[in-house]
């Protein structure tokens, strides 16, 4: 967020040159070409990703200006935002004029000699799923994409962040960006997650406790034993929603799990290059005496499955809790009402957000004080760069196996990439989804957002594994409840918002 909070203790600390560095400091310093007289830093960008929605604009604009891409082999184009996810899809899309975006991206990529994961490519999928899957995102590199969820890729220990189309042009042409150095924050997750609680619940819980602007202006490092215990895909889910916390980006220090994940992937280094890379990657952690501008700690033992009730990711409660009132002092009741949204450290956010909460309750068609579990839903959606990797599909399938979606409810699964889809089919998960009554789709961003193409119906209530519950995000006046794949699957079965733990334990 702008402005960054003033007074950087960490900056003073760094300037002494004697003390430890954070992971972010190390990545930033390695990529600093030069400091500009105006106080911004010229940062070298190792890799650029584009997708057909914003990438097409950047590429057309560049061509119109007669400018060339500095290093085409380091640029990767994905088709994910506008493409349909019906199995027999083509360049023609449900969204009017979608073909223009797809063709412009394809032609722009071919003309400039960029890497392209086209619609018919078996590697096609959502940019933030494809990049790690192909080994393109790696520890210690900088990566940008004109897409706000680029922070997902920080899970590998990369410095990856979302930019606009004009900045993408700047990165393509100059291999750099002018950036004001963000502040640093560390969020330590301690304790152990309870069974049935996932990385999605961790990040929603964090945002619920500290607000949708809680990480504003900060590069947020997620650390602590509960983060180290997460597999790589769960780490991506955690970092994915750093932007919903208003962070500049999220990142996690690479460890043995990161290396094991990367080794052998198509774009990962091999042989001597791997050895050299690994030696460097092992230096990428925050020093014990590093100082952060801000630190938060979350005990994972307290986290229940989370579900949003409103129109901001900070409008979130335990699935066992009740919908809070607009004014938080009214909501504290004796039973299982979550303290998350009404915690003391959040009081200022609450006061300022009272009008927002009232509007959200009205928009969502919910009564303050009602239990969130049991709220009838119209649709269930499993997909997006947040939660559509193979481990997410396995988790949802564990709930769905031998069960059926409640009749009349529309349930859709859109794998994060065609590779994820193929893997799921090898494991027979597609059969589980289909048998349960889920539509089984090709890959793309799909109905994570309403882009003029396919969408959920007017005011339909959707429980969704995606990342944004904004007004009309998934269709006209749709009412989105964000949750984990387990919670979405369990809710699809019962037809109402449901705590997944009972079904998972059976």
């Amino acid at each position, binding site marked *: 967020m*702008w402005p960054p909070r003033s007074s950087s203790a960490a900056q003073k600390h760094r300037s002494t040159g004697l003390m430890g560095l954070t992971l972010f400091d190390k990545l930033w310093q390695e990529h600093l070409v*030069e400091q500009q007289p105006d106080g911004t830093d010229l940062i070298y960008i190792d890799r650029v990703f584009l997708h057909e929605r914003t990438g097409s604009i950047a590429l057309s604009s560049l061509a119109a200006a007669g400018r060339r891409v500095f290093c085409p082999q380091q640029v990767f184009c994905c088709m994910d935002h506008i493409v349909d996810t019906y199995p027999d899809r083509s360049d023609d899309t449900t969204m009017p004029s979608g073909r223009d975006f797809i063709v412009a991206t394809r032609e722009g990529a071919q003309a400039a000699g960029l*890497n392209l994961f086209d619609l018919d490519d078996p590697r096609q999928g959502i940019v933030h799923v494809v990049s790690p899957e192909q080994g393109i995102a790696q520890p210690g590199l900088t990566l940008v994409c*004109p897409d706000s969820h680029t922070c997902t890729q920080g899970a590998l220990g990369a410095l990856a962040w979302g930019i606009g189309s004009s900045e993408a042009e700047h990165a393509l042409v100059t291999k750099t960006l002018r950036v004001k150095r963000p502040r640093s924050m560390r969020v330590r997750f301690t304790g152990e997650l309870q069974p049935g609680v996932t990385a999605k619940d961790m990040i929603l819980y964090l945002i619920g406790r500290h607000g949708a*602007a809680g990480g504003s202006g900060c590069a947020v490092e997620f650390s602590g034993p509960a983060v180290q215990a997460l597999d790589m895909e769960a780490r991506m889910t955690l970092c994915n929603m750093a932007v919903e916390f208003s962070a500049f980006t999220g990142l996690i220090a690479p460890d043995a799990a990161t290396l094991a994940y990367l080794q052998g992937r198509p774009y*990962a280094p091999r042989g001597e290059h791997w050895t050299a890379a690994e030696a460097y990657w092992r230096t990428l952690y925050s020093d014990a005496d590093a100082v952060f501008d801000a630190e938060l700690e979350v005990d994972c033992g307290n986290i229940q499955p989370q579900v949003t009730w409103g129109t901001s990711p900070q409008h979130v409660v335990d699935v066992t809790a009740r919908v809070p009132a607009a004014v938080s002092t009214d909501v504290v009741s004796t039973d299982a009402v979550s303290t998350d949204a009404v915690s003391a450290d959040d009081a200022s956010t609450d006061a300022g957000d009272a009008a*927002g909460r009232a509007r959200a309750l009205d928009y969502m068609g919910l009564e303050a004080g009602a239990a969130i579990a049991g709220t009838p839903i119209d649709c269930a959606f499993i997909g997006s760069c947040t939660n559509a990797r193979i481990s997410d599909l396995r988790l949802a399938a564990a709930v769905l196996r031998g069960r059926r979606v409640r009749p009349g409810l529309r349930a859709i699964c859109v794998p994060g990439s065609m590779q994820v889809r193929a893997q799921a089919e090898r494991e027979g998960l597609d059969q589980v989804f289909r048998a349960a009554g889920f539509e089984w789709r090709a890959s793309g961003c799909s109905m994570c957002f309403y882009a*003029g193409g396919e969408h959920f119906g007017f005011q339909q209530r959707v429980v969704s594994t995606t990342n944004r519950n904004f007004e009309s995000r998934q269709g006209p006046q749709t009412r989105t409840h964000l949750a984990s794949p387990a919670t979405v699957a369990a809710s699809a079965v019962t037809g109402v918002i449901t705590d997944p733990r009972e079904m998972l334990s059976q």
Partner: protein
Amino acid sequence: MKAFTVHEGIAAPMDRANVDTDLIIPKQFLKSIKRSGFGPNLFDELRYLDEGQPGQDCSGRPLNQDFPLNFPRYQGASILLARENFGCGSSREHAPWALEDYGFRCIIAPSFADIFYNNCFKNGVLPIVLSEEQVEQLFAEMYAQEGYALTVDLQEQKVLTPSGEVMPFQVDAFRRQCLLQGLDDIGLTLQRADAIRAYEEKWRQQSPWLFGAIK
């Protein structure tokens, strides 16, 4: 890009926190690979009573008369007063394009989301951060006085209210310069090409796998 030096214009309210870019320009209207023509769909959900369709002529659509931008007093407004975390959510540059196409040259808020803030400067729109108290004061004065207009002087980095009160603001020197002159920052950065190449050579030595292992 249009240069921005001194601008005087009517102020209009967007009186809610965390206005996200979906609200500024809903995704279904991002139908063109062009950068212009998004103004009629700015704040579409709030502005019209019907459900807008991409490609539709908006001139005959029913207006939401409760939405301030539709009030007669705010017609022709070019300065938007907003609340905290304005422009959060999706990175779409269509948000400043839509604001600019509608006629807004300046947005004043206590804070902005990062990507949106950057995107504004790239498109001739000046985002100004003032304190919560100052923004509150501007809102109050605007509500109290029809035709309330502000003068924004980027050269002097000041907002001037009708009563003559001066509110200084901060802006990065580089961004200010680019906006004052309507300059394209890519051209300026290319002047640093030697430094970039020198860095790249050093980085290639240090991290050969980033250069060698592709393809």
